[in-house]
C-alpha cells in the first residue's frame, strides 16, 4: 500500500504545517501591535487550525481504512485505533511531525512574523493550486477551500512586507534583518518530500513562481535577497529544531497529563 502510505504522510505533512504555523500565529493573540492587527493575525491562526482539522480528518480516515496494511507511525506507541484528528495532533511526538522548519521557528518581532507568513503563504498558494488536480477528490476539495483563505493571508502579509520594507529607516532595518534571519529556512519548501508522489505536483514550477513573486515584492519594498545561503532542512522527514519540542509540550500538555480529557 505504498500509495496510501504516501498520501497519508503527505496529508500529515500539510496538516502539520498548518497546525504549527497556526499555533505560532496564535501566540500573538492579545499581543498584536494594535487591536485590528491582533484580530487579523488571530483570524489567520484560526484559518490555519481549520485547514489542519480538515487535513487531519482526511488523514485519519485513510489511516483507519488501511490500518492493517501500513505501519502507523515511527513510534506510534501512544495512538490507538481508530485514530482521530485529535490523536494525530495531540499524541504524536516530535520525530513524527512532518512540518517544514520555517513553520516552527520562533515569531521574532512583527517584521519576522509577517515576513514568514508572506514567504510561507505564497508557497502554499502555489502548492494548493496544484493540488486542485489531485486524484483524491477530498484533497482537491480541501485545497479549493484553503486557497480562498490563503489568498487573504498572502495579501495581508505582503502589505506588511511592503509597508515595513518601504517605511522608516527602523522598519526597513527590521524587515531586512528578518529576511536575513529566515532566508535559510525557505529552501526546504522546494525540496519534494519522498512521499509527495501525487502526479499533479511539480515543485520546480512552485519554486519558479514563488521566486518571481517574492522578488517582485522585495524589489518594490527595496529589500535585498541574501546571497546564496545554507539550506536548513529536515522538518518534512521528522528532523526538527529544538523549538518544535517546546511547542508540542505546550500544545499537548493537557492530553498527555489527563488522557482523553474533554472540555
Amino acid at each position: 500500500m505504498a500509495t496510501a502510505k504516501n498520501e497519508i504522510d503527505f496529508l500529515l505533512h500539510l496538516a502539520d504545517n498548518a497546525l504549527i504555523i497556526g499555533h505560532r500565529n496564535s501566540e500573538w493573540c492579545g499581543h498584536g501591535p494594535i487591536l485590528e492587527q491582533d484580530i487579523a493575525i488571530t483570524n489567520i491562526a484560526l484559518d490555519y487550525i481549520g485547514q489542519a482539522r480538515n487535513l487531519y480528518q482526511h488523514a485519519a480516515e485513510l489511516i483507519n481504512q488501511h490500518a492493517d496494511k501500513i505501519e502507523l507511525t515511527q513510534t506510534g506507541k501512544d495512538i490507538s485505533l481508530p485514530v482521530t484528528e485529535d490523536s494525530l495532533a495531540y499524541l504524536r511526538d516530535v520525530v513524527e511531525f512532518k512540518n517544514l522548519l520555517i513553520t516552527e521557528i520562533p515569531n521574532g518581532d512583527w517584521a519576522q512574523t509577517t515576513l514568514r507568513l508572506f514567504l510561507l503563504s505564497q508557497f502554499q498558494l502555489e502548492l494548493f493550486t496544484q493540488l486542485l488536480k489531485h486524484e483524491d477528490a477530498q484533497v482537491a476539495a480541501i485545497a479549493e477551500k484553503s486557497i480562498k483563505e490563503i489568498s487573504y493571508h498572502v495579501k495581508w502579509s505582503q502589505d506588511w512586507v511592503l509597508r515595513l520594507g518601504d517605511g522608516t529607516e527602523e522598519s526597513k532595518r527590521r524587515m531586512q534583518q528578518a529576511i536575513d534571519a529566515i532566508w535559510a529556512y525557505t529552501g526546504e519548501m522546494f525540496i519534494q518530500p519522498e512521499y509527495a508522489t501525487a502526479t499533479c505536483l511539480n515543485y520546480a514550477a512552485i519554486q519558479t513562481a514563488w521566486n518571481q513573486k517574492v522578488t517582485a515584492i522585495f524589489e518594490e519594498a527595496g529589500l535585498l535577497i541574501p546571497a546564496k545561503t545554507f539550506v536548513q532542512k529536515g522538518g518534512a522527514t521528522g528532523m526538527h529544531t529544538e523549538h518544535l519540542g517546546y511547542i508540542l509540550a505546550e500544545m499537548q500538555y493537557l492530553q498527555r497529563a489527563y488522557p482523553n480529557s474533554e472540555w
Partner: protein
Amino acid sequence: MDPEVPVLSVVDLGVIRAVDVEGRQVRVTITPTYTGCPAMDMIAMQIRMALLGAGYEPTIKTILSPAWTTDWMTEKGKQQLKAYGIAPPVGKSIDAAYLEDLVVPCPQCQSTHTVLVSQFGSTACKALFKCEECKEPFDYFKCH
C-alpha cells in the same frame, strides 16, 4: 439562524447545500463558510435539534467542495445583513481584483466614501471598514 449573525438564516447564508427527505429520515448537507469557523459545529447541532424536535431522524453531512462562496447568499440574506448594520458582500467572488480596489457602501449612511481598516474583522467571515462620512466603523461580510 447563524449564531454570529442572528438575523441571517442558514439557508439565506448559503451553507445548506442539499436536503433529502425519505419518510422520517432527513439528510442535510452543509458546507462551512470558513474552515476554522467555530459556528459550524453549532449550526450543525442546531439543525439536528430542530429536526429532532420536529420528529425527524436527521443525519448531517459536511462537504467542502464546491467551496462555499458569498454568491450563494440570497438577495434576502444580503438585505437582512445590511439592515443589521453589516455591509453585504459586493460583487462576485473568485475575482482576484476585488481585494485591490473594492468599494463598500456604508450600511449606516450609504456613503461610498469608506476605507478598509483591516481584511480581518470580528469573525472569520468579516472585514473591518470605516466610513469617512458618518465616521462609523462597520463590519463587511467578505466576498469570498
